[in-house]
């Protein structure tokens, strides 16, 4: 692989890698640092890329491993939510509805951030990034059953907590 195909094929996945690293680390600067490190590794191992069937999943796997190493090295767990919420702009919503939606999303962000690590990563890979189960197996180095169980638990945990919040108005 030459520099040109590296720039055209590999670098564009930076946002996916960044979002994934952000799920682990919860800090944009650290996530950016990880993505940079991933690209350096991919470049150094570029001869291997022809043998790898799904190089995007391979990049994601390196991101996961480097993020986990980083978490271990800084000896702190993911505690900070990624961000306060998203700016929701939708013409069909009134300002009140927009605020309400933003609040809901902020809560969901916190619920997902509080999930166990594997569940949080699997739900991110499936529901945000839209990866297939096989790709998630590849990235997470888990078998199909573990992926499905983690996804099921993650979705239901978020759902149960949303129901509780609604029921008690917490």
């Amino acid at each position, binding site marked *: 692989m030459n*520099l040109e195909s*590296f*720039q055209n094929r590999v*670098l564009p996945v*930076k*946002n996916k890698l*960044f*979002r994934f690293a*952000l799920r682990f680390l919860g800090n944009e600067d650290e996530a*950016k640092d990880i*993505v*940079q490190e991933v*690209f*350096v590794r991919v*470049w*150094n191992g570029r001869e291997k890329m022809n043998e790898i069937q799904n190089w995007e999943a391979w990049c994601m796997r390196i991101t996961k491993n480097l993020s986990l190493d980083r978490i271990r090295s800084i000896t702190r767990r993911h505690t900070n939510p*990624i961000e306060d919420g*998203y700016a*929701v702009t*939708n013409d*069909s*919503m009134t300002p009140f509805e927009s605020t*309400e*939606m933003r609040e*809901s*999303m902020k*809560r*969901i*962000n916190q619920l*997902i951030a509080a999930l166990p690590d594997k569940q949080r990563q699997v739900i*991110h890979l*499936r*529901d*945000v*990034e*839209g990866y*297939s189960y096989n790709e998630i197996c590849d990235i997470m180095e888990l078998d199909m059953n573990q992926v*499905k169980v983690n*996804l*099921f638990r993650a*979705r*239901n945990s*978020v*759902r149960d907590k*949303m*129901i509780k*919040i*609604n029921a008690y108005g917490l």
Partner: protein
Amino acid sequence: MPMDSKRLQQLLARYWSGDTTLEEEAELREHFQAGDFPDELKETAALFRYFNEGKKKSLSDISFEPAVIEKIHKPNKQGRLVALLYNASKIAAGLLVVIVATWFIRNEIRKSTPQEIVDTYDDPKLAFEETKKALMMISKSFGTAQAQAKKINMFNEAQEEIQRKSKDSL
């Protein structure tokens, strides 16, 4: 195309049990993004919107890619230098071990060898006597060897005699 409420309920039920396909999940995200949902699904809508918004999160730093390109070029030089230093240090460590080992062995040999064998005699007269004694010993050995060699000579003489006689008889 808007989804009817029956299909929405069915898809959601399948989603919570982890049975939806990627296409169906995309359909759900699209549906909730459009803002057409009943009030009781407000939180669910927020969840799907959260996923949608999550995918928009990007590494916005424009200096990121140039920094990566610079980094993947730099480590080569740095890597070579590091490798050179690393190899040199390996050789230096090997040499150090040999030198230290030689020094220790030499010390041990010096300790175990009696000093008088190593030392020369300080007194020139005594040294002369000792040299004479040693040369005499060698000379005596030579003398003995010569006497032994004479015996071997007898065999030669006998052999010549036999050869001569056998010639005469012919």
